[in-house]
């Protein structure tokens, strides 16, 4: 897990982004092995993955570097949706494709289904960093990570939202009430295995240019 790879930055040798290289170097100096992986698109953007234990200290290190503008905080569910991409009829039998249900993390890799995602900006140097961290599930299926409120006060509402949408709890958050949904709402909507009931009840007529009219398509859907 704690493999240090500089390959991404080295490959992009033709365009040297000194500003972002310096940021990464300072982060590594501050956090040591806690920086798991770095992905850089020179002159465009920077992704850094840290260990879950160092989530808050990574925030503190970035803040000390001048990243004092809090952009957003959220999470990712990397599991492919079991209900297809929305264009298929969800009531149809999907042929089993092991590659389709494989969890593939994006930039900077990862080991867990859920990942934290946050972005902070330095308004003086005009540069931003997207921070990621793995989110290991506890034995009972819950997940928790340190709260960012002491570092960025604005993280309060973002963490409430993330808790509501993904079911991730934040240690040290004073008030993880639901923000959007009624109190008796069940499930975590942004998890990929949360079904959109309206789509299950009334299948989407399908991708564009279907010849039979949507009404007749619906009838077929009911029969099958």
């Amino acid at each position, binding site marked *: 897990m704690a493999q240090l790879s500089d390959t991404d930055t080295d490959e992009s040798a033709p365009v040297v982004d000194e500003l972002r290289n310096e940021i990464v170097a300072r982060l590594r100096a501050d956090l040591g092995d806690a920086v798991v992986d770095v992905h850089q698109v020179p002159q465009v953007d920077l*992704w850094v993955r840290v260990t879950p234990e160092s989530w808050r200290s990574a925030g503190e290190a970035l803040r000390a570097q001048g990243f004092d503008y809090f952009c*957003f905080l959220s999470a990712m569910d990397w599991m492919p949706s079991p209900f297809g991409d*929305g264009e298929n009829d969800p009531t149809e039998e999907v042929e089993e494709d092991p590659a389709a249900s494989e969890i593939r993390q*994006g930039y900077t890799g990862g080991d867990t289904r859920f990942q934290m995602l946050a*972005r902070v900006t330095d308004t003086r140097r005009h540069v931003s960093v*997207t921070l990621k961290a793995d989110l290991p599930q506890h034995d009972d299926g819950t997940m928790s990570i340190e709260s960012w409120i002491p570092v960025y006060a604005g993280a309060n509402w973002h963490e409430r939202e993330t808790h509501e949408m993904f079911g991730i709890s934040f240690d040290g958050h004073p008030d993880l009430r639901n923000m959007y*949904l009624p109190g008796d709402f069940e499930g975590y909507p942004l998890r*990929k295995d949360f079904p959109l009931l309206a789509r299950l009840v009334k299948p989407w007529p399908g991708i564009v240019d279907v010849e039979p009219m949507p009404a007749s398509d619906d009838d077929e859907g009911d029969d099958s």
Partner: protein
Amino acid sequence: MTMLSERQQMSYIASQAADARLNVELETEGMTLNIGPQHPATHGTLRIIARLDGEQVVWAEPSAGYMHRGYEKLTEVRTFPQVTALINRIDWLGSFANEVPFILAAEQLMDIEAPPRAQHIRTILFELSRIANVSLFLGDLGVQMGAVTPVFMAFRDREYVLNLIEGATGGRFHPNFDRIGGLKDDLPKGWLDETRQVMKKLRNFCDEIEDLLFGNEIFQSRTRGIGVIPADVARQYGLSGANLRASGVDWDLRRDQSLPLAYDKVDFRVWTHPDGDSWARCWIRLQEVREATKIVDQLIETLPPGPVMTKVPRIIKVPEGEAWVSTENPLGEMGYYVVSKGDLGPFRVKIRSASFNNISITPWVLKGVYVPDIITILASLYFILGDIDR
């Protein structure tokens, strides 16, 4: 913040007193006041729960979510062109501006770029949505303080801008005009001349509002020194747009990042204000409408010829990758974190909307203010419900 006005000092003392009262728990009985969800003063369906001590707010918390429509989930079951139609409706006053960052993110993933003419027209329409959005704010500002006339003026002059947007895109409110790789259409004949005329009218509108509202003594005493947000607090909460610049932070994404839009070809000023109070926020927005009209004027003069659409496949599949693009929308920084897995639709879209961050500061800023000031502070922070709840 060189000199503290008397009102600022008073508000500081008041907030300290409110803190002290919370800590000591005097025997006065508090009162909980519920404003909203539907209330003429809340601009939509935001509900504010405030605990009062006399006329003073001891603790206040907005309760959002009455407009939560589940955008981030819905984007996962739609194709890229369908998402464009949906995200128009996040910030419904400046709807074209919502499309641009998402389209730019998709283009960044596909590694294509719109032709120069399309970039120009995008920028023009972007600024027109800013005018349509913020001019309504300027009118609405009066209503929040009991003056009804400015809103009629705002609706009058906003119609001209909506007509322009409708003339170019076919949609008065939700254009859905932006495509991956360019624009749906070129501008119609005679549109540029009309735009020049309308920009003059809009500048007149700004002058009128400035005389009528900003020069008004009641307006000044209701806003000056009220709801002061210092720069470091503003940055911590992620305030953006005019709210951040009113706190003295010189940060404008139009100028400070290089995107394939035409902002590098125009000359415009980014206004900042050192005070960070309600008045500063309103004043910055007024100046922004003026700057926007100037930007549109300059872009019309330098509109390059050429096509408005590059070659893109008929069925768009965006390659695997992650991209973040944010733009300086009328309300502040609006960004999309788009994750694609090479399918027809995005795998996940994290929508960073400006109002969500802007309004998350309210528990901090409302502490210690008087009840009537709640309304002016919220009005000056300027939020749109769809932009908070998404």
